[in-house]
């Protein structure tokens, strides 16, 4: 039984198969067809809905998510808002009224999803001491909603003018309390453990069961390949996997912590990492996808692994046979092959605190700036000690079958001044140790040249930093990204 609130009214749905998505539940079972399917792969945003997880006293904290990739079972205890639930009678919600007044819908098919992303933005804007609507914030909020008709200008205007409309009250909701009676509620083939011990026990009992957290990649197996997902263990509610623990040495980040939750934490120690997160897929995905999932998925083009490699991150793997720690660099073995045993899971990721004087640059190259997968991602960490490079770690995505470091290039730089000679040697070493493949995102040659050029960009940036004083900024621009750190 899934017990949730739909547009303020309590809804109970029994007999829902494990692989049912929120979109299927809405359209096929509940007859709520305002939410559209555009791609069933989380890339277009037409199915965007808002999910409120029980939050503080101010009411639920709404996130925009892709209904096509969200397991229906994860609605349990949540407040789901769809495009049908925003207007109060004939009075449109500001997100809707602004869209009409700005002429921001043409064919209208993407519009419900865009309205829902605007709605979550509206809610965010009135909850906090709202940060101003900058271009980066708007891109972050709306980058996951494709519109093929308008060219987005009127949608931008709608986003900027929502606040000009009379404020509306939060959508009232019948209170739904998660059923905590049985500690670890288990629907047939869809287990929802609440604690680490329960998760370990489930993994012992059903080692072949697939783990699901954000489902942002797993769910493609059912929507795109029609594979059965009939034995799932949902780790999202495992308390221990949702903890972020700060120590003197750094942070242990629970495996089920979402990227959206992780991002603000990164701002101070690792602004370059934080900046990358705004280009990691879309807001809809970032609110669902987890750091553990991005690592366990072991894609050669995942965005966080190269950064974590450059930061010398460690993993805590757990399972019925106990926990163990492992350097991330020992985790990726071969294409989509990892050191994770069948009954193990990633319990936490350790992110070290930056050493004094340590630097990090992260550059992602893709066809489109937003909501795209990397062709090449370079993450570079180093310290400059008396004019000499130390602790150089260069990690790449998209350049091999796994995300990996480039030890030859690192060695060419380690202990050298950051000059043209050292970087030329690093570039030569890089070309020898990494042999990328060509695919739909870029040819092998492009990847090779671009990766080498990222080292050149690094050299220029270090050189520019060296000539920059507090008073005089270097005039040489080496990246288009105004926000690059």
């Amino acid at each position: 039984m899934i017990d949730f609130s739909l547009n303020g009214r309590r809804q109970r749905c029994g007999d829902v198969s494990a692989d049912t998505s929120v979109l299927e539940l809405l359209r096929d079972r509940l007859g709520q067809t305002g939410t559209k399917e555009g791609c069933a792969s989380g890339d277009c945003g037409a199915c965007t809905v808002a999910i409120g997880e029980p939050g503080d006293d101010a009411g639920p904290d709404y996130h925009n998510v892709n209904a096509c990739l969200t397991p229906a079972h994860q609605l349990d205890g949540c407040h789901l808002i769809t495009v049908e639930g925003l207007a109060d009678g004939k009075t449109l919600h500001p997100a809707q009224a602004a869209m009409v007044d700005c002429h921001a819908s043409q064919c209208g098919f993407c519009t419900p999803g865009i309205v829902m992303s605007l709605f979550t933005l509206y809610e965010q804007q009135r909850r906090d001491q709202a940060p101003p609507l900058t271009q980066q914030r708007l891109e972050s909020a709306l980058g996951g909603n494709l519109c093929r008709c308008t060219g987005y200008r009127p949608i931008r205007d709608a986003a900027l003018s929502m606040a000009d409309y009379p404020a509306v009250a939060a959508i009232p909701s019948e209170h739904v309390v998660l059923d905590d009676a049985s500690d670890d509620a288990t629907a047939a083939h869809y287990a929802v453990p609440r604690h680490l011990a329960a998760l370990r026990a489930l993994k012992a009992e059903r080692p072949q069961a697939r783990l699901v957290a954000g489902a942002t990649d797993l769910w493609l197996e059912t929507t795109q390949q029609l594979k059965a997902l009939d034995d799932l263990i949902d780790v999202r509610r495992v308390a221990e996997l949702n903890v972020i623990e700060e120590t003197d040495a750094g942070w242990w980040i629970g495996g089920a912590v979402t990227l959206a939750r992780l991002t603000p934490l990164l701002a101070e120690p690792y602004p370059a990492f934080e900046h990358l997160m705004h280009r990691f897929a879309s807001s809809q995905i970032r609110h669902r996808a987890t750091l553990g999932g991005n690592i366990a998925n072991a894609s050669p083009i995942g965005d966080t692994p190269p950064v974590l490699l450059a930061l010398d991150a460690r993993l805590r793997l757990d399972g019925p046979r106990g926990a163990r720690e492992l350097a991330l660099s020992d985790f990726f073995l071969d294409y989509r092959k990892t050191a994770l045993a069948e009954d193990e899971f990633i319990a936490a990721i350790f992110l070290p605190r930056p050493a004094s004087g340590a630097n990090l640059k992260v550059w992602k190259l893709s066809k489109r700036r937003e909501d795209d997968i990397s062709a090449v991602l370079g993450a570079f960490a180093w310290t400059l000690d008396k004019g000499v490079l130390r602790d150089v770690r260069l990690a790449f995505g998209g350049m091999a079958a796994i995300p990996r470091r480039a030890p030859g290039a690192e060695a060419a730089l380690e202990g050298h001044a950051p000059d043209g000679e050292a970087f030329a040697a690093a570039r030569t070493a890089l070309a020898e140790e990494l042999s990328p493949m060509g695919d739909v995102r870029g040819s092998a040659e492009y990847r090779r040249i671009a990766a080498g050029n990222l080292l050149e960009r690094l050299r220029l940036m270090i050189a520019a930093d060296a000539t920059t004083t507090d008073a005089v900024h270097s005039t040489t621009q080496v990246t288009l990204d105004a926000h690059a750190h």
Partner: protein
Amino acid sequence: MRTLTRLSHSPDTARGGESAADQRPNQRNQGDAPLARETVAPQGGANNARAHESATKHVTGRAAYIDDIAPPTGVVHVAVGLSPVAYGRLTRLDLDEVRRAPGVVDVICLADVPGHTDIGPVFPGDPIFVDETISYLGQCLFAVAAESHRAARLAVKQATVEIDERPASLDPVAAAEREEFVRPTHVHERGDWQGALEAAPHVLEGTQFVGGQEHFYLEGQACLAVPSEDEGVMVYTSNQHPSETQKLVAEVLGIPFHAVTMEMRRMGGGFGGKETQASPWACIAALIARRTGRAAKVRLPRAEDSRATGKRHPFHNRYRLGFDDQGVLAGGDIRLIGDCGYSPDLSEAIVDRAMFHADNAYSLGDARVTGQRARTHTASNTAFRGFGGPQGMMIIERAMDDIARHLGEDPLTIRRRNLYRAQRPDAAPRDITHYGQRVEQLTLLHELIARLEQSSDYWTRRREITAFNAQSPIIKKGLALTPVKFGISFTAQHLNQAGALLHVYTDGSVLINHGGTEMGQGLHTKVCQVVARELGLDLERVRISATRTDKVPNTSPTAASSGADLNGQAARDAASKLRERLFDFAAEHFERDAGGLDRETMRLEGGELIAGLGEAETRLPWGELVQAAYIGRISLSEKGFYATPLIHYDRATGRGRPFYYYAFGAAVSEVEVDTLSGEYRVSRADILHDVGDSLNPAIDIGQIEGGFIQGMGWLTSEELVWNEAGRLVSDGPATYKIPAFGDLPETFNVELLQGHPNSQASIYRSKAVGEPPFMLAISVWSALRDALASLTDYRVSPALDTPATPERVLMAAEALRRERTTADAEHDESPDHAPA
């Protein structure tokens, strides 16, 4: 009207008045400054800037698309089995396991089709299911109907398919060399082009590849067929051409056309992708509905939609042009090869339109333009906004840049010198196209460009950019102004007709139907506005319902930007006929004692009939007039019709006047390119566009902005990739990247040209707006080339095929750097080199 989205640093400048400052182009927004919105209110025809008729339904989720219609009880869901190889012979198709799969209700293949099996829209060549020869990967082999969408899709996987696979032909240039064409080659020839080339002081040549484009309508192909009580079907379809689908469904079923009705309320995007490509699914759904007696729904999953349906034609273009020292074209030779895919579909007309636009806005002089239609083993390429026009324009825009670099001039200077212009008595005519049509409104584009040059600060920015590039080794800026001249009319003359059906009910409410279809472009809104204007009513009293083939028959596709031109005129015809009938009635019926109402001065305004002037003026509410007419047994229903005058084209000679008129526009784009990574962004775009007297400025601005961004996607990030086996690997939004929110230029100034009504008697002197703005995006591509050219001090005109992805831009930059290094080395070694 002008919309001006201002991204300003200070929120308190939001919502200012229309001061001179507000009209100035904006400074770029940098960093994390808060944004403010400023959309300047419509000027001039403000009352016409009405919201889309479905806007409120869009934002509340009440606007229903095909998959949202509550289907009749017992509906079956259809999935299609697509060929896994690109070319070969189907040797075995065993569907027994498919029939046995859970939930399966029916399975059909070619042998089960009672009527026609070829559903080619204009020319034959498109089998509804493969017979023996497989012609592309994604071609339809069979269809399955099941109790659920998923059951049908799962059942498809149970088929046993054996194919004698052959090497697929995927290279259109090689196909053209082998003369493998879907239609014969066509040529436009004007004057002694060979002589012009020989006599010209300068001759340049170049080739380019212009990539195709996936429509990526957000709503995929979908239809619902419901069997009727006789032998026919009712088909709800997402479709730009219901009449053609009606014909094909009837022919496939072997029943008369009147047994088949199409209903089309709205599409979730079309862009040309639902002109011919919607028909196969309707035919399949209708077949299954008739066989099972149950309603049948087809909706293609995104990846199947991408593989099964045609796209914008990729083109391989070549030019060889001669010009004088001023860069003015004397003449030359242009060859366009369209990659048509496996069958003709609409490729005859599409490559023709590419040829008609190989001049864009420039007089070619004495020229030959050749269009070839290569056959390859891919989906049959089809209509897409611009219909070949954009691909044709690309070659002459390439040439303009190349000539400028060759002569060391600014590309804008060369473009201006080559614009069509008034004929001087002593010189060769420069106002007649290579296909013999005289260009009217000759000064319009000159004036438009001059205004845009000024409003966009082109020359100031040019100087700034040149200075910036001189001191910035990695980041390079580029700027380009490109014009558009786009011919309006279907080049197939018979399609230039439209019908409408107008009903007035006794409460005074008005219902209009016409043959056009609504795909988001605001056609229904505009047609309602036309009717409201003709009848002097508030727009709220006029409503439009779905497009239906049993209301207005034998319609043309909603395509070629013609929707409002044709259907607006037909609706106007119906409304004006009804109005005249009501006037006749009113003149007779009212105030008989006083000798009747004055017929001559009668008018409909503000919801009233007004007769007489001054003191003699009589007013009668519309509702009363209608009620009286009804009681007086006057018909309150009327049909309208329109056929475009003047146009003709003789394909045998390649000459005529294929276009009723031209629509014009120009855009200035500025880009910043990272020459180390190939990344770039469009920082600013300024557009001035000609829509004659706008029917609805808000909708027109929307078409211009949306067309520009869609065109920018075509030329930049949207890359179709096939593997060696002919499989489309960019088959969904994860791998095929249409522009996203952040690709919108931070400064985007869009303005409608004022004061230039259409010189032809189009609907209220407006101009078509659907397609022309798409080609304004060529300015982005040209600006990218401009930025790259700076790597060689603007000496070299860089090759840049499209889409100009970061990869292509980086490769171009690398090639230029190599060239520069080589050139410098040669320069240094040159014996006569003297230090400056």
